[in-house]
């Protein structure tokens, strides 16, 4: 039903949402995954995303915005095509996570939560990503890289720049 209506999402994502809301005893349970999947497609949570997600779930836009502001992965501004997230929490800190962060800052010429001029990369210092035993670790979008050195880090950035990086969605 909802797919026949006007949607800002791709037909695949719209169909996925149609199914998603039926999986739970309560439609609203689909809210957090919907926001994240919408962000994966649109790049960020725009006003339009909020409006359509609210409508699909029968919620007020206010409710959606309140949930949106709680979760750290959800953003209301575009990030780079490749969002580089460097963990500096304790296990990574002990294995030079800050060195990796500094290296990325220099290499990309941007700071925490900034985007490169060409829009290709953004950088974020993040909390523990569950890869502590393989520290220091980062994620580029959803892909993990671990046991990093500045050299390995350069290779990863080069690969993404050349369009050869992993891309889990």
């Amino acid at each position: 039903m909802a797919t026949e209506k006007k949607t800002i999402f791709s037909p695949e994502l719209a169909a996925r949402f149609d199914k998603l809301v039926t999986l739970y005893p309560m439609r609203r349970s689909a809210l957090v995954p919907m926001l994240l999947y919408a962000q994966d497609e649109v790049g960020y949570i725009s006003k339009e995303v909020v409006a359509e997600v609210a409508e699909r779930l029968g919620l007020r836009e206010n409710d959606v915005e309140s949930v949106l502001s709680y979760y750290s992965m959800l953003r209301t501004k575009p990030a780079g095509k490749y969002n580089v997230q460097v963990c500096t929490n304790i296990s990574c800190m002990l294995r030079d996570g800050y060195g990796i962060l500094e290296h990325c800052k220099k290499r990309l010429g941007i700071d925490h939560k900034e985007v490169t001029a060409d829009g290709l990369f953004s950088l974020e210092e993040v909390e523990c990503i569950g890869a502590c035993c393989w520290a220091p670790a980062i994620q580029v979008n959803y892909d993990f890289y671990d046991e990093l050195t500045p050299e390995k880090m350069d290779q990863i950035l080069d690969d993404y720049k050349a369009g050869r990086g992993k891309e889990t969605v």
Partner: protein
Amino acid sequence: MPRLVSHPDEVKITSRRFGLGATDIEKYIALDGYKAVQAAIAKGPEWIIAEMKASGLRGRGGAGFPTGLKWSFVPKQSEKPKYVLVNGDESEPGTCKDHLIFLYDPHAVIEGTMIAGIAIGAKLGFIYLRGEYRYLLKIMEKAVADAYAKGFLGKNIFGSGIDFDVVTQTGAGAYEVGEESALMESLEGKRGVPRIKPPFPAVVGLYGGPTVINNAETIASVPHIMLMGGEAYAKLGTERNGGTRLFGISGHVERPGVYELPMGYNLKKAIYDVAGGIRGGKKLKAVVPGGSSTPVMTADEIDVGLDFDQMGKAGTMLGSGGIVVLDETVCIVEFALRTIQFYQHESCGWCIPCREGTDWLKKSIGRLHAGGAVDKDIDNIRYLAENMLGRTFCPLGDAAAMPTIGFVQKFRKEFEDHLNGKGCPYKHAREEEAALV
């Protein structure tokens, strides 16, 4: 890709299928997969719960509550549907064990969820993974789809007349959502603000129905307990601490990794034998034994067995099993600061003692580390943390306060060394060293 490690002292139960290709359902079946759930169906809920109680399995999420007992609290009759909720939010710094379970043995999580469901009379189970674990969610989703295709999930599972469904769910970045009541809020599509307890989830949980919430490792251990028997599992560990556990050893050790060791295994041996000792032959300074929220231990306190009771007696906690090892080069104040920064960032802001407490602790420790503090600030830090204990809406406040108190108590001298404009001695040492090169 996370590196798998191995050590002769390991007893591989829950990690038995790691690296053997068990994400493939056929391979999982060949490795005794989906046998436990059939046994559980044949023998029934009372048998399952009796075996779980006999196993001495205690929750692997951090608090160590006996799993069989938790399941037995769920009322037999309930007007509202009952649920199983698997906690794969895994966000406590130092903890990465569930990561490996989702990666290498996703069907064990499904099978454990089914067994929990049969035990309590639930027809629906949720497996919640933190949002960052997208590649693992994909692995879980495929495993669930394969289990449906085989007819293992859905209507009339294994010809039992029982229906059971599994739904996977993604979070979107929030440590607090790992707390069980906040987890339910998140799954209901809300901000992850904790609920007041009681009522406990076993009575009023998801959508108001009785709900069993267990950590992913707890759930993945269940099929093995069904197959080997509760008593045999219990015997692997120590008194009231049955079985084995996935310990993640990280930080300054030669061979960091996730090792499955019997409960009660000696912490010192875990660091020096299993993980190969301190990196580069340096001296050990401190150990954070069970994730960032557990109070620090000094180098001479670690000759102790890794179980909930022995660690409690030692003045700390077994927690999530994430052992973080610090060598002599670490500034404890800097480490304490990074720890409190995390809790300040993750405090949901709902209650004042936690929101304000973590913020002031971060400011005070930050100022001290920078050299801008005076003597009485050290006591103030401790006093502030002590006054958060037990006064916050959920245990996140405790999780922030406990390690802070520990750092001040055990390493007061290092705090003092920063006073009166001196700043961080370790930083100076590092700078001097760098200048020499």
